[in-house]
């Protein structure tokens, strides 16, 4: 490794962290304004144009807040938990490419790119779990336990959904996954890109991944770990000042990172919606076409990537403003009895495509969907009675 390689690596890390941290206030502002818009309110609009400086003011306020340590907390682990929740979020995006230039992105184009992301996101459970336990508070503990159970359950579905991208591209490498999607759509439409979401397995895998993504980041309708109507603020009840801010930052950076994974694996990464490669060949003549080729080939890809990223983030807000929070047993049922079987069948039918081509695979999809509706289509959702108890404890169905 020469000194120049080292310098480029530092630059790549600086760009990634710089983007994640500088876009963070914007994302928080967007969440508050968009939610206000959905709920027919105004939202923060006083500080700066459109209230854009509000997150800065909030950060300044958090800096000067008093930090209250619970008397019976496990001090060391209590202080460690916010760092443990921020660290995996910050490093998880390291293998995501956001442009075609391999000197600037991704930070490390390793052979195990997607596995690296899964590893880092599986470590994210510790921050929440330990925060809940070390606070020595009933609400915090319940929040932490809920979070860990949820993350373990949905990690399996997420792995199965991501496996479709791995199987379709034949590699764990993120740049190979994007290159696979740069081919013409279904191999026949030359002016469009073959984004994975346009294939049957990609559509199902992408839908599964989207659900798992909401659950992994503890967002509505899966925000049971911090359900404010039952658990105060869940695992972060006892945190104040900058430790609370660290949890907050960790949550939003994790959302950005996981949206980046969805963009890369299913929505074509930094590829434009239309295939601009004819312009690249025309661009060799120079002049006007040369300018246009630089624009579409080198400058626009990061723009497309960020556009898709923010589109996904906006869908998070849309869902949060629309859907009700699930009950705990519903959450587990969705994870284990719907996502995982559907993901397994989807993966099996994708292998049929890889081995025998698309006709047997499409027949397989038709048979599977028909069977699903024949078996489950007429079944009514079972009604359950919920015992309401005055003390905070996990939901239990009524004993028959």
């Amino acid at each position: 490794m020469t000194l120049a390689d080292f310098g480029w690596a530092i630059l790549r890390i600086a760009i990634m962290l710089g983007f994640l941290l500088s876009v963070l206030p914007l994302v928080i502002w967007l969440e508050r304004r968009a939610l206000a818009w959905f709920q027919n309110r105004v939202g923060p609009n006083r500080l700066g144009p459109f209230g854009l400086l509000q997150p800065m003011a909030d950060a300044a306020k958090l800096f000067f807040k008093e930090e209250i340590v619970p008397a019976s907390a496990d001090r060391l682990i209590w202080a460690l938990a916010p760092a443990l929740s921020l660290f995996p979020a910050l490093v998880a995006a390291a293998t995501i490419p956001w442009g075609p230039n391999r000197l600037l992105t991704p930070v490390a184009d390793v052979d195990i790119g997607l596995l690296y992301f899964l590893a880092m996101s599986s470590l994210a459970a510790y921050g929440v779990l330990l925060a809940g336990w070390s606070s020595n508070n009933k609400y915090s503990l319940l929040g932490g336990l809920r979070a860990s159970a949820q993350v373990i359950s949905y990690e399996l579905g997420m792995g199965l959904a991501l496996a479709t991208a791995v199987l379709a591209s034949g590699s764990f490498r993120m740049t190979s996954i994007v290159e696979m999607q740069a081919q013409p759509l279904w191999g026949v439409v030359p002016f469009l890109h073959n984004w994975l979401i346009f294939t049957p397995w990609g559509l199902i895998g992408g839908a599964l991944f989207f659900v798992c993504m909401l659950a992994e980041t503890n967002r509505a309708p899966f925000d049971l770990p911090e359900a404010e109507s039952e658990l105060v603020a869940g695992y972060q009840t006892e945190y104040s000042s900058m430790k609370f801010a660290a949890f907050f930052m960790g949550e939003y950076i994790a959302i950005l990172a996981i949206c980046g994974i969805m963009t890369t694996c299913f929505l074509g990464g930094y590829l434009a919606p239309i295939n601009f490669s004819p312009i690249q060949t025309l661009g060799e003549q120079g002049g006007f076409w040369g300018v246009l080729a630089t624009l579409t080939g080198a400058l626009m890809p990061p723009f497309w990537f960020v556009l898709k990223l923010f589109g996904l983030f906006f869908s998070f807000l849309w869902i949060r403003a629309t859907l009700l929070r699930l009950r705990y047993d519903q959450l587990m049922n969705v994870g284990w009895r719907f996502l995982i079987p559907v993901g397994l069948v989807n993966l099996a039918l994708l292998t049929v495509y890889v081995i025998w081509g698309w006709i047997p695979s499409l027949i397989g999809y038709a048979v599977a969907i028909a069977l699903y509706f024949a078996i489950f289509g007429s079944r009514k959702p079972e009604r359950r009675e919920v015992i309401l108890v005055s003390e905070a404890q996990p939901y239990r169905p009524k004993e028959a």
Partner: protein
Amino acid sequence: MGERVLFFILAIVAILSAGGVVFSRNPVRSALLLVLNFFTLALIYFTLSAQFIGALQVIVYAGAIMVLFLFVIMLLNLGSPDAVPQERDLKRPLAYLIGFGILATLIAQSLALLIPGVPQASPDAGTARVIGLALFTQWAYPLLLMGVLLTVGVIGSILLARRRAS
């Protein structure tokens, strides 16, 4: 040279955290030190260019299994420092015997590796492609048997849970 320094740092962290797992009185801290131990092991795998195994080590052991351990410790409220009773029976000397036996075997095996001239693995020996090819061609039958074993384990755990529920 740099790799050797890195190895010694990681090895020291791994040994210290492994000792901490045994000597810590608090079950939650023991479990956390075990996570640290698994994580350093994964980093050692990375330095040996066994990247696939390193990633799986983090996903399966440090990620899933240890979260489950911690979950159970917290759910059963074993978290207080003096909650682990120390029983005096045959288990203890037996554990010492087995532990030191494994340690002696490991030392005997690794002493041979300190002699220079040990063959180096090729840089791409640890990639997913190489491991997948080996698993699904040369070691296909052991892999299938492992699958059967895991299925039996899953069915057994479902049976146990069913019996408790009814």
